[in-house]
């Protein structure tokens, strides 16, 4: 008996030493965990010599923790990050270009425009997990009730507005009890792009801000009008008190929402909700959001080979198919497997395909250092437009001036 125990202990100890351990970090709520766990499980089964330790923090504290670990030179080997070039510029990310060449990684299957946001000085530093594609979700019952035809490719802003007005209901005191549409605070750029406007002059190497040009001002004013004039959308500043846009839609208090695939799982929690997926309305052009977070390797990782092996699985067709299968991530790598995995989810295959069409209209964010600070600044100032304190022209005029200063201050990569 004792001998057996000793042997057993030796085996355990041996296997512990022989397996290479890598650490893999990402943010997300417990609900988002399953695909990650599935990937790690399948990878470990294929590679018994590598153990993957999962490090999961909520979004709100993720970056402090990662940054602190980096300061201590002990960050996870593979990490989920966004705004890749800004990290690459600091030298904390491993240049993956040589690895890709050596192992023939199918990098061409990725959405190339999206992949370009993972590049710094022409080198690839990571791979997107998915694309943050926005679609128009609508509540079929509320549409039927109001006698409004379902949205389709013919919808421009006017049709969208008319529908929203018919779908808004008020009580005797004039309070809105059902909104036509709910708008998210950080999607203002989408409307500018739909109206043919631009945030900056050149998205790959911006030199000046163009938010004070007519197309941008019109778009911002249109959003403000939806809230303040037509009163078909709840005040963006009030959203926090009402619940998230997805919560409002799930509980049937709003007829339409412009958001991404990640919210579908929440919609499905309301069994009686009949919802549809439609393309975004257009104005001058069709446009969509392009961007998303992805996976990178730590430049000071002690197990780069094992980390790359894991990344090939995680970011390759198999990993991408697992994320796609969960139904809440539009795969960034398009292969027959990933597309099939994504579309065989509710509400229907045909509606799921709209995500791919819409992704092709995606416009990425300007690729400059400090973009998120600029974005946050503009988003904050726009509150004064949504609350009717100031007009779109007024705010965008001084915002443009300020953003120009910020572009100059942050410089280029």
């Amino acid at each position, binding site marked *: 008996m004792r001998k057996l125990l000793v042997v057993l202990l030796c085996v355990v100890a041996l296997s512990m030493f022989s397996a290479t351990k890598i650490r893999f970090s990402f943010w997300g709520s417990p609900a988002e965990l399953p695909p990650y766990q599935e990937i790690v499980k399948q990878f470990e089964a294929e590679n018994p010599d590598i153990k993957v330790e999962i490090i999961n923090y909520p979004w709100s504290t993720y970056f402090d923790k990662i940054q602190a670990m980096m300061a201590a030179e002990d960050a996870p080997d593979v990490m989920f990050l966004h705004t890749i070039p800004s990290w690459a510029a600091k030298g*904390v990310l491993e240049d993956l270009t040589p690895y890709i060449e050596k192992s023939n990684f199918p990098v061409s299957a990725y959405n190339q425009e999206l992949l370009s946001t993972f590049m710094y000085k022409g080198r690839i530093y990571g791979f997107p997990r998915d694309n943050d594609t926005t679609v128009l979700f609508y509540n079929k019952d509320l549409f039927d009730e109001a006698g409004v035809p379902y949205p389709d490719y013919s919808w421009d802003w006017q049709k969208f507005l008319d529908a929203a007005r018919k779908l808004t209901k008020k009580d005797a005191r004039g309070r809105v009890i059902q909104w036509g549409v709910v708008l998210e605070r950080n999607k203002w750029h989408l409307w500018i792009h739909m109206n043919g406007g631009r945030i900056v002059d050149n998205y790959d190497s911006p030199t000046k801000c163009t938010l004070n040009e007519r197309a941008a001002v019109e778009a911002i004013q249109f959003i403000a009008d939806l809230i303040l004039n037509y009163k078909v959308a709840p*005040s963006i*500043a009030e959203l*926090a008190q009402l619940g998230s846009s997805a919560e409002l839609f799930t509980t049937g208090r709003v007829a339409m929402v412009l958001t991404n695939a990640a919210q579908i799982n929440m919609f499905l929690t309301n069994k009686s909700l009949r919802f549809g997926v439609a393309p975004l309305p257009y104005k001058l052009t069709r446009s969509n959001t392009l961007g998303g977070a992805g996976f990178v390797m730590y430049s000071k990782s002690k197990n780069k080979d094992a980390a790359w092996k894991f990344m090939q699985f995680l970011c390759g067709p198999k990993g991408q198919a697992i994320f796609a299968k969960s139904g809440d991530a539009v795969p960034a790598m398009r292969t027959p497997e990933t597309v099939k995995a994504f579309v065989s989810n509710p509400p229907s295959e045909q509606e799921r395909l709209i995500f791919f069409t819409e992704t092709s209209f995606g416009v990425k964010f300007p690729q400059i250092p400090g973009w998120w600070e600029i974005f946050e600044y503009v988003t904050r100032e726009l*509150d004064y437009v949504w609350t009717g304190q100031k007009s779109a022209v007024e705010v965008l005029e001084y915002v443009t001036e300020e953003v120009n200063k910020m572009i100059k201050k942050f410089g280029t990569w």
Partner: protein
Amino acid sequence: MTLRRKETLAAWLFLLPGFVGFAIFVFGAVVFSSVLSFFEWDMLTKPTFVGLRNFTKLFLADKTFHLVFRNTLWFVLGTVPTRVLLGLIFALILVRNVPGRTFFRAAIFLPVIIPTVAAAMVWRWIFNADFGLLNDFLYQIGVSNLPRWLSDPKWALVAIVILSVWKDVGFSTVMFMAGLQSIPTTVYEAAKLDGANAWKTFVHITLPLLSPTTFFVIVINVISSFQVFDQAYVLTGGGPGNATNTIVYYIYNNAFQWFRMGYAAAIAWVLFGIIFIATFVQFKYQRKWVYYE
């Protein structure tokens, strides 16, 4: 070893854990942040020495800092007098044997021990412009132009003040109650014999004898009000726009959102300076109105 030495050693050993903790997490951090305030550091690349540039930027160029400073000052001016006054009134009532005294004492003190985050979640509903309790009440009593509270830049800070007063008035109340109870009854008896009415007794006896408590309550409230953060963080995220952005919130954003550690440290030291001066001035002028027996 003599007993005395043994005891000294034991004392040092008992103090050691606390002292080490203090040395590393308080004193060390303070020294580190003061050095940091002269550097630019993003936690990833090497810190660069920038001299006084963080401070000159703060005072001369950073409009957002000026704005958050003004917001914080308004917050202090809104909360401190209200908390002190309401605390005193509640204490004066509750120190007597009024019916339901125990219940009201608990009701007033309860918010102090509720975590701010939980309280703010509830107040979010209360402040809801269309269906919130507060506006519903105002509507019932005939107010026609209902404020949109958290989503109106003009009212959002007022909302934060209301929440903060509700949250911490219990602390002032308890302090004042203790202060009131420590005033000897003999003084009141003497005043009564001399024929002083209730108002005169209050102004010439209660207030002066309570002044050390009042002083303490004001100082503590000023210090804590300057550090307002979590209410705004949960309730409004500093918005709409920058309407409820405060100094500590700005430190948090600089340090942990934009990773400008040096700049955040500089703001922290300026905040320390502000609080130090505010407290120093109060101590200096206390001689004019605080009476110690």
